[in-house]
């Protein structure tokens, strides 16, 4: 059995905020893109749960990666809606996204974050402007 080869996304590695938070991206093709995060103490709030800003950042990131991969151009977030479903404070979480409206200038995406056991941690959706 051979290991699955993942494509690199150059802009992702050059993004200071994504590096600062520790996000990693794994791409096989347009429909199989994941953003992963290994939760550590810097990601937590005072109640020692994953900070809500991390969920929002991760959902926006996977939605942006999905759109930039399809459109091959940059996008700008106009709206993001986040549902916080399950609290978490350690382990590996994974985000995936699905484009639900692919317009010429506007696109809509939905996304989710799950933990290592497949439990839903957060659900997101957003509207983005396509920069042409």
């Amino acid at each position, binding site marked *: 059995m051979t290991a699955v080869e993942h494509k690199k996304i150059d*802009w*992702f590695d*050059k*993004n*200071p*905020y*994504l*590096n*600062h*938070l520790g996000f990693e991206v794994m791409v096989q093709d347009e429909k199989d893109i994941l953003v992963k995060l290994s939760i550590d*103490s*810097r*990601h*937590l*709030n*005072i*109640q020692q*749960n*994953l*900070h*809500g*800003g*991390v969920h*929002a*950042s*991760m959902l*926006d*990131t996977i939605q942006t990666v999905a759109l930039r991969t399809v459109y091959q151009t*940059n996008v*700008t*977030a*106009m*709206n*993001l*809606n*986040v*549902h*916080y479903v399950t*609290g978490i404070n350690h382990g590996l979480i994974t985000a995936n996204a699905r484009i639900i409206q692919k317009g010429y200038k506007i696109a809509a995406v939905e996304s989710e974050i799950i933990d290592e056991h497949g439990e839903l941690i957060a659900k997101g959706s957003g509207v983005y402007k396509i920069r042409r």
Partner: protein
Amino acid sequence: MEETKSTISSFYDYLGFVGDETSETGFELELPLNPFLLQDDGTVHPGVFATMLDIMMGATISRQTDSFATTINLNLSYFDLEPKSNYTAETVILHRDGKYVTADGVIYDQNKKRIAKATGSFKLNPKNY
């Protein structure tokens, strides 16, 4: 899932928030523009503003209800992601129904131009449970 009491948390510190001031009338939060808040195209990552609004709303609700506030939902609108020198945020509590609170938050730049807005739903938890 937002903290409430003093907004001092690991993630708060990690993004570089300052100006955590307590007053009788409200809560003030500032964010200096650090290079690690930017994206590869030079704009501010939307997650930064989501974080700022979540912190701000959670802290304000906590202060006014003397409870921890756990975020249930955040609906964010972004108006300008170009970097500014400084950001401030304001919160208004819109409604309370028992353990559930709805609030609005707005981020302004140094010229008081509106940068982002959020409406959030929060659940209150007693601080001593």
